């Protein structure tokens, strides 16, 4: 009896504590801007303000092609159900027109909306929390004064009850979402620190490139974790390893290579595709050369993650082709379907068609991106408003699962590449899970 009573007391106390904690955690966070008077005019030149919006790539999720910028609507799949990016134009009724700077800050850096409801962490506030007060002010400026208000109600999420209750997210935030602005490391250069700030903060690179844990949290939010930016699966793509791994990461890339990829979408090792294509089209190409250099310096400082096999070019494949040796499975398909653009030597054509030999995406352990791009092709890179003409074509219609698996296996094991084989079953699964990419040009406008 006594034991039961004790248990009962514990339960009651537990519930009281839980409710109390939930209540506390669901309080409106404090913001350094709580006391700031209402801002009625822009505080910064619009170029400076919009630059922060470019860095944070808000447009990628909050805009749809052909619709008003930042009026929301992009559906995002999650294990819980589909959710929709919201209207963040300064419309008072349906957007964020009533947000004070402090409200805005709480949304961007803490994941709390003006009415107190918690945002889903598909909004990368755990990263944005590292942004400086100054950048938040600029961002606020941009959305209040440079973006046209658009009256467009937000779409309800497709997440069913009770999973759609937002208050438990407060616990998630307490556990996983940092609340501190990026702090410079004095032992590192100013350039490195700027790069770290951009990568960890506004650039939110880890949202795609860092593995997520059981609670969908990024397992590391900065370089203190050695899985940080070591590559992750997302939306049918494998965001590649950005650490120093020689074969599968950026080990063989120079700082200039990194800058070139982020500025022009391509370099001698690879091109942007998949979701990185969107990040490139909307964000990285607009960054200053100094910022891109800083990002490169920071990324190049990240040591390899895990085992670090070395890649060197092996011309055995080229020699086999020259001798008409098509015995390797997939070799024949490669000749008819791939070699026209990627070459029998696997080295691609200039900067426009990427090499497959030594391409980190090709030799990465996870083949998801390779299967996806073979099935669905690539979208179109848009540089300075001009769409690219050298688009990877989809093979979804032309080739069967077993044929795509053969090609993927071939390119992953040729020219010195040494990555595991791909099965037809893997292709079949991704075929079912993905939609073809269209050759229609998608240009998301910021203004």
């Amino acid at each position, binding site marked *: 009896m006594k034991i039961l009573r004790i248990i009962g007391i514990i339960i009651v106390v537990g519930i009281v504590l839980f409710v109390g904690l939930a209540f506390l955690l669901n309080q409106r966070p404090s913001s350094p801007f709580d006391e700031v008077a209402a801002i009625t005019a822009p505080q910064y030149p619009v170029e400076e303000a919009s630059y922060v919006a470019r860095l944070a790539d808000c447009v990628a999720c909050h805009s749809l092609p052909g619709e008003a910028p930042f009026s929301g609507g992009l559906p995002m799949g999650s294990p819980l159900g589909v959710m929709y990016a919201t209207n963040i134009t300064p419309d008072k009724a349906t957007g964020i027109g009533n947000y004070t700077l402090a409200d805005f800050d709480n949304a961007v850096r803490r994941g709390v909306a003006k009415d107190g409801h918690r945002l889903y962490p598909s909004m990368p506030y755990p990263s944005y929390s590292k942004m400086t007060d100054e950048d938040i002010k600029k961002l606020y400026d941009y959305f209040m004064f440079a973006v046209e208000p658009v009256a467009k109600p937000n779409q309800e999420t497709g997440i069913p009850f009770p999973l759609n209750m937002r208050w438990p997210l407060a616990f998630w935030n307490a556990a996983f979402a940092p609340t501190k602005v990026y702090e410079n490391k004095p032992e590192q250069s100013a350039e490195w620190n700027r790069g770290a700030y951009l990568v960890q903060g506004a650039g939110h690179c880890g949202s795609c490139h860092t593995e997520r844990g059981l609670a969908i949290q990024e397992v590391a939010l900065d370089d203190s974790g050695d899985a940080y930016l070591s590559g992750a699966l997302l939306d049918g793509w494998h965001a590649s390893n950005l650490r120093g791994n020689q074969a599968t990461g950026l080990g063989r890339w120079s700082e200039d290579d990194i800058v070139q990829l982020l500025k022009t979408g391509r370099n001698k090792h690879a091109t942007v595709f998949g979701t990185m294509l969107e990040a490139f089209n909307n964000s990285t190409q607009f960054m200053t050369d100094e910022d891109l250099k800083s990002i490169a310096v920071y990324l190049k400082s990240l040591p390899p993650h895990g085992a670090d096999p070395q890649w060197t070019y092996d011309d055995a494949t080229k020699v086999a082709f020259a001798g008409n040796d098509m015995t390797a499975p997939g070799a024949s398909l490669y000749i008819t379907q791939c070699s026209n653009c990627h070459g029998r030597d696997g080295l691609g054509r200039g900067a426009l068609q990427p090499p497959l030999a030594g391409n980190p995406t090709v030799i990465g352990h996870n083949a998801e991106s390779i299967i996806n791009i073979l099935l669905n*092709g690539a979208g179109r890179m848009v540089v300075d408003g001009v769409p690219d003409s050298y688009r990877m074509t989809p093979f979804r219609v032309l080739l069967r699962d077993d044929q795509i698996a053969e090609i993927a296996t071939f390119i992953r094991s040729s020219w010195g590449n040494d990555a595991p084989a791909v099965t037809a079953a893997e292709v079949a699964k991704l075929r079912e899970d993905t939609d073809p990419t269209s050759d229609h040009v998608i240009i998301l406008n910021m203004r």
Partner: protein
Amino acid sequence: MNEIKTTRRNFIISSLALGGALVIGTRAQAAIVDAEPWDLANPAGSVEFTPWLTINADGSVIVRATAVDIGNGTLTQIAAYIKEELDPVWDQIKPQYASTNRDYLEENVYSNANVGGALAYFSGRSTGPARMDTYMQVAASARERLKAAAAAAWSVPAGEITITEGVLNHASGKSSGIGEFVQAAAAIQLAEEPKPKDRSEWTFLGKKHPGKVQLPQIVNGSLIYGVDVIVPKMVYAALRQSPVMGGTLKSFDADAVKSMPGVLAVVAVKPGDNVPTDLKPPFPFGVSTAQHAVAVIAEHYWQARTALDALPVEWDDGPGAQWKTTQQMNNAAIAALDKPGEKVEVSTGDFDGVFKAARKTVEGTYLTPYCEQAPMEPLNGTAMVTPERVDFWHPSQHSQMAYMVAADETGVKPENVFFHQTFVGGGFGRRVFSDDARMVVAVAKHFPGRPVHVIWSREEATRQGRYRPLMAGRLWAALGDDGYPTALQGRVSGGPGFFVSGINDTAITALLPNVQIESQTVPFHILTGPYRGPGYNSNAFFIETFLDECAVAAGVDPMEYRLQIFGKWADIGWAKCLNEVKAKSRWGEALPKGQGRGVAIANWGMGGKADAGTTVATVAKVEVSKEGVLKILQIDLAFDTGRIVNEDAVRTELEGGTMFGLNMAVNEGLNIKDGQIVEGNFDEYPMLRMADMPAQINVHFGGLSDNPRFNEIGEPPAGVIGPAVGNAIFQATGTRIRQMPFRTQDMSWS
């Protein structure tokens, strides 16, 4: 090694130095584009015997062609007529395209009712009686006049003179090239026009089967197709039309691209922006209506295309956007079959009564999708428009239509419109309606004074087609006690522009005593047009698959079933063709599991009559893996066009038609999303390649009936290949294929 510097401008000058005029045909020997003005095409010392025929002083012969050569060999065929009657040296016969402008000025000298009428300038039918007789007659007449002239000079009877290989001969030893007598011959009036030779006297037609006259220019890349036209001061245009057909152009931001390299202008095209004429076109001008479009004009094509991609454009999709998915359209077409058709195409006997009394009936519902002709040369054309004059170079399938469209679009007087027919990189019906011609001229007239070369991207051409229509069909048959049909009912439906030929005018509807065929139009917005065997290519699939289902229901071998039915038809060609493929395909010989043979027979162009059109019977042998991967092993094909004149030309057309029909049935189908066509290029709209070829395509000549007609050969195979393959799949797997394309159908078995 010479260090040379070539620029585009230099090239034009050098090519002009060769050609010397605003004509680009200098690199193509066989059939230069019509010179302007046309009478300059007759070299010094030559004589024009008739508008169809000029003989030069060197003995070479210019013969003028109306029927555009799209690879079907019309130029070679008319050269063969001249060869038969006049016998010049083969290589010295130079076919040229007949000027449409001259035809206009000279009261339809090339297109009156005696020489083909509205279809005179159409790309085919060169063996049609109107054309065949015309060419044979003018050549015979020239021959007799040449002989008469030589007879006068040599003082011998004309009847003793012969012409062989371009040389006039007399037994006395007198001999001379025909060129020497052209002037004298031109002055001669024959007392009586000679009759063309009787077929029994032919020495060339039916005996020799020359390859196409333009082959030498094809194999060295010098043949000029529309896309190869280069004229001085030419600029290029890249084109985008409303992604949803019938949509309108809301706005575009030309400022965003005007500073891009080479960009000269951004122009908008809208329908109804033309200056109508009172010309009587071979097809109503309505079929050539332009869609709303925007085009970027630049110095080089790649610049135009790059800028077009970068051009911000907004469209108003219009009502077509209501069609969200292909499935929605398919469902609408099939739903239209549930009620009686708005139009009764055929109604004979008491079909209703027979059905009510029937003990056994069979029903089948079938569907064919939108398909794009996809000629390998993308749509294009070059036009220079000024207020007074239009010059227009274009790979048309109906040059008279294109010519009149150019006048109708610009308002320039027809006598000042000069249409230059180029070679054509495939047609298959796509270039007949001349909507492409109108678009070229409509773009060019916004950039007057310079030739504008408009080139569609492959994606633009694929998504802005005039397609084989989406069609659904449902057939019902009442079977008698012997299992054979006693009555037939059919309903077909599809978007505006669908065709019923091949179902209301074929042998089975003529044979059965009780028949009703109805049709129903569904309000789709997708534009349609001719596509190799229009209507027939769907209807033959419907009816021949259905007949196979009847045979199965009757428990009769499908070949025997057809032989029984069509053995009763007045046209013996049907049974001959069936018997021929039955024997040659080893019909009935046992096959391993997963393999099967299927048969189909149909006729293109018979119009419900016996001894008309071209009948084709096909047996397909296929293999289907357990996983459902289809492989075509063998196609046997027999045909009856009555008679033939060039065996090899017939064979190539039948081989080509077989491949076309196979691709259509197995691969082709366009999808719709939010009113737009989804597929843009060959990655999404697959084509059979060498590796997909059946090991054997056997064309057999044993079906020919020797009926006195020379009929068409290009379109007929398009109808039968699909149902033959589908019926073979049924034999191999037990799965009945009722919808094209077959590649989307599950054929797996266990």
